[in-house]
């Protein structure tokens, strides 16, 4: 089977399967990043709030999920939540195994991991906001919500974008671990194809090329966001 047939869209070609895998990767990573942003900002806020209990919990969450290998987190999130769901289902009389939908479990796992890193990014970005601006806002009598909306959020986002860009790439790669939930994303699709055709080189390269495409696409978006967010800011430092 030559290269064109193997990667193409004909009957024995793996083209469609790889593309489907790529789309799945995109979706799971996106959902994961969103969940991570929610969790991450919560944890960053907890750490910065000065309330010791909140800070400790945030610290604990971040330490736990940064320190554990991602594969283990995916396992525990998937099988743990499935066990909980099955237990609840048994109480209601449903027999057998009730699994959490693979997509939800995968996105949740990616999100939980991403959140622990995003907390650091948000925290660092917040600390980069000029202290003077916060003082001035308070001096002028801005309420907390207004201050957040007009001063903190825009600037935090501005400083966080390079870090978030990094973490999006990380989320894309982390999504390659969720195949344990049964979801076929890009890496798994490449491996299935490689095994079926005994052409590992072709499929690693094809899979890599597709990841590159996903990256190129997202890079564009992040660059655009960075440029817009830093409008009017002088960035020269060298």
């Amino acid at each position: 089977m030559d290269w064109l047939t193997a990667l193409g869209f004909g009957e024995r070609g793996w083209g469609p399967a790889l593309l489907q895998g790529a789309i799945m990767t995109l979706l799971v990573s996106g959902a994961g990043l969103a969940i991570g942003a929610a969790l991450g900002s919560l944890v960053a806020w907890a750490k910065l709030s000065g309330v010791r209990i909140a800070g400790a919990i945030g610290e604990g969450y971040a330490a736990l999920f940064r320190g554990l290998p991602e594969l283990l987190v995916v396992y525990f999130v998937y099988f743990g939540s499935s066990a909980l769901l099955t237990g609840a289902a048994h109480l209601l009389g449903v027999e057998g195994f009730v699994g959490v939908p693979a997509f939800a479990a995968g996105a949740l796992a990616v999100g939980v991991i991403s959140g622990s890193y995003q907390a650091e990014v948000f925290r660092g970005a917040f600390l980069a906001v000029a202290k003077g601006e916060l003082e001035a806002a308070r001096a002028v009598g801005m309420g907390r919500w207004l201050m957040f909306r007009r001063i903190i959020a825009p600037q935090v986002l501005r400083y966080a974008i390079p870090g978030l860009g990094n973490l999006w790439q990380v989320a894309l790669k982390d999504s390659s671990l969720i195949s344990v939930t049964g979801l076929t994303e890009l890496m798994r699709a490449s491996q299935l194809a490689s095994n079926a055709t005994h052409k590992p080189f072709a499929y690693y390269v094809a899979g890599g090329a597709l990841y590159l495409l996903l990256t190129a696409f997202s890079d564009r978006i992040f660059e655009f966001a960075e440029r817009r967010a830093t409008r009017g800011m002088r960035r020269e430092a060298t």
Partner: protein
Amino acid sequence: MMSLDFIEATFMRLMAALQVTLSVWALSVLIGAFIGGGVAWMRVSGVKPLEWLARAYVFVFRGTPLLVQLFIVYYGLSSFPVIRASVFWPFLRDAFNCATLSCALCTAAYQSEIFRGALAGVPPGQVEAARACGMSSFLLFRRVIFPIALRQALPAYSTEVISMVKATALVSLVTLWDVMSVALKIRNDTLVTYTPLLIAGGIYFVVNYLIARVFIFLEQWLSPHLRSRSA
């Protein structure tokens, strides 16, 4: 399964594999820092061809999974007779060299972006003031830019360093057996589902926690003026 013997035996095997994990990690982070610094410098140099090269490098090495990079460096390169005959072959023949090289190239891309972001976060006002005082470029870098950028880079940098510890779990692709891979191997041989993974998880957690602590200490040491900050 939960017998103390099994747990102890597994723990000893995993600790032995820790050496593989840590040596690949340490070398690749160090080498990656140098390469990453170089790439970041190219990126902000103002010389268009260098900038473009740096951007391409970051694009390729951040955009593809490390697994693919490992595969190409170890299996891909060796499939070309011209490489096998070249002066690089004694180096590339060895799995450890290939794994470390590949991981270094990968982390360099991420590290260069961190450096770039940190440099961009230096307040331009301070740079202007320094130049107005007549500081030379080198003094400016040493006394203003570097300290500030270093401080800003630390959170993201600690993230990357810890990521690399876990990324070393992929090197089993090229026949190196690190902690995670040995744990999975024990699993496959004995079919004991969770115990090897829990022990491995514990080991990774402790290592990563220690690294994180070091970085927190560094952060606090370098930014006394930010310590009383709150929202």
